[in-house]
């Protein structure tokens, strides 16, 4: 894109210069005395080269200015495709570009909402099926326990059917989960958090607060702490938690990662008054907190983490400690 603008601008300028310079050179050749011909011709050629050089500088700048928002848009679109569902809120002051940016932002919001609803549905289906199956198997066990041999055998056979049904439900949910997490990659936790810090440095400097990143042994730790997750999902979820801590919390915000068996736990805590009791059961409900126009809310953040087979929990209300659980890649696989 940038090269094309550069080349076409240059072509126009070279053409224009040539159209002026060639007749001038002809005039010089015809009407100027031979001793001065060389000087005059050189002057014309020099001016032509200067004009082309100046055009090149101007064209390069114009190209850069036209292309910068476009490549920013491309980056944003690629991030969206990679599962990073946070609206950027970026606008460029150029109508056409702003239309594209708005479309990207609203797609991000819609996709986030879609993921949330899909997760909610899967969770509800799973919960309802399992609860009903539990109730059914409890009754059957009661029948088996309180009956004579023949009825007991029937009840046991029915219980086997329940077990098979449970197995089917598990397999279906497993399948759905694998499809959902198709963007998940191997994620170096310490590296990811270091990049996150860079994103948030300015916001913390402006508010005079401190962001502490606490990874076991820092970047030099061997073996590395690795998770399987979609980088965009993790960045978004942690972004919401950090933003919350910055807006509603106080004091130092600490993001600490550690291994916990087959999982990686990343905790985000601050030193504020925390989440008031009545809000505790509601913090992950839609439209309760987080997402103030830009960014996503806690409900979507939780859905994004769950889409990677992780969990997002409020581990402690006062002061607030949120925990993101992610599948861990242990050293061996």
């Amino acid at each position: 894109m940038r090269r094309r603008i550069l080349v076409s601008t240059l072509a126009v300028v070279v053409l224009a210069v040539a159209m002026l310079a060639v007749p001038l050179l002809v005039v010089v050749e015809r009407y100027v005395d031979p001793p001065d011909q060389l000087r005059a011709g050189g002057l014309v050629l020099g001016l032509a080269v200067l004009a082309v050089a100046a055009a090149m500088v101007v064209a390069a700048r114009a190209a850069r200015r036209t292309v910068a928002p476009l490549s920013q848009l491309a980056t944003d679109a690629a991030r969206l495709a990679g599962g990073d569902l946070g609206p950027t809120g970026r606008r460029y002051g150029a109508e056409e570009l702003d239309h594209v940016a708005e479309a990207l932002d609203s797609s991000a919001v819609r996709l986030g909402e879609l993921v949330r609803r899909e997760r909610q549905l899967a969770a509800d289906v799973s919960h309802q099926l399992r609860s009903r199956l539990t109730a059914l198997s409890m009754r059957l066990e009661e029948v088996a326990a309180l009956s004579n041999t023949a009825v007991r055998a029937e009840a046991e056979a029915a219980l086997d059917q329940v077990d098979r049904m449970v197995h089917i439900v598990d397999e279906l949910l497993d399948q759905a989960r694998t499809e959902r997490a198709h963007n998940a990659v191997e994620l170096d936790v310490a590296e990811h958090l270091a990049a996150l810090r860079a994103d948030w440095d300015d916001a913390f400097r402006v508010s005079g607060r401190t962001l502490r990143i606490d990874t076991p042994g820092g970047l030099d730790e061997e073996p590395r702490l690795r998770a399987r997750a979609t980088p965009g999902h993790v960045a978004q979820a942690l972004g919401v938690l950090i933003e919350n801590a910055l807006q509603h919390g106080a004091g130092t915000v600490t993001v600490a990662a550690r291994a916990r068996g087959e999982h990686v736990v990343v905790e985000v805590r601050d030193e504020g008054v925390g989440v008031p009791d009545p809000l505790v059961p509601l913090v992950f409900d839609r439209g309760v907190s987080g997402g103030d126009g830009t960014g996503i809310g806690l409900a979507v953040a939780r859905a994004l983490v769950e889409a990677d087979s992780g969990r997002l929990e409020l581990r402690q209300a006062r002061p607030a400690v949120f925990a993101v659980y992610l599948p861990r890649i242990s050293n061996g696989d």
Partner: protein
Amino acid sequence: MRWRAVARTASNGWVPRPLGGTLYGCGVATVLLAEDDTAIAQPLARALEREGYEVVVRADGVSALQTALSGTVDLLVLDLGLPRTDGLEVARRLRAAGSALPVLMLTARRDEVDFVVGLDAGADDYVGKPFRLAELLARVRALLRRRYTPDLAASGVRLELASHRAFCDGEEIHLTNKEYALLRLLLEHAGDVVTRQEAAEHVWGDAEMAGSKTLDMHISWLRRKLGDPAQAPRRLVTVRGVGFRFER
């Protein structure tokens, strides 16, 4: 058959108790069942009663927490999908209030990560829904038994005496018999100095070992397994010329 008599008499208050519900002769164990789904709560309560437990049923998180904190129950069977305050939050508040009541969580979310989340919230064990009754009852028995052999814990290190297992920051660590004995002695006196003589006599049954390198080697192995840096240990501290101290 006794269970038939139990089932019939459960409603009028008198229930013959089979052995399962008694606690080493200390009376009958009371199980608090926190489950809002009556289609599950009713048969489950009856099953627990058949085993000889007293059963108290609560159908929401707030009242479950109140009853759990009242000190009248021996075990909490906690469904995670409770209304008002969900099960995880009940477990968290219970632990925040300093209660050591054994908690067996029931959850329809049975991915491994859900169990980890539950254990982090303060549950002691979990059963995924749907479950077989025998499995649930076995967990209930194990938890009640464990209650009477309390764990030893300090500085994020925990010994489960009943099962002879050791945990460091929630992760199980594997210890040799001597290491386990040494760690147990140190944890029993967490915050106080254990002299080299005491350690030698207690772990090796031989006071002569107090001056040997063996004791120091075991200490350094323990530190390594507990992730304690030898130069600046945070948990297992050397008290120069006296012995060792496990920090609280």
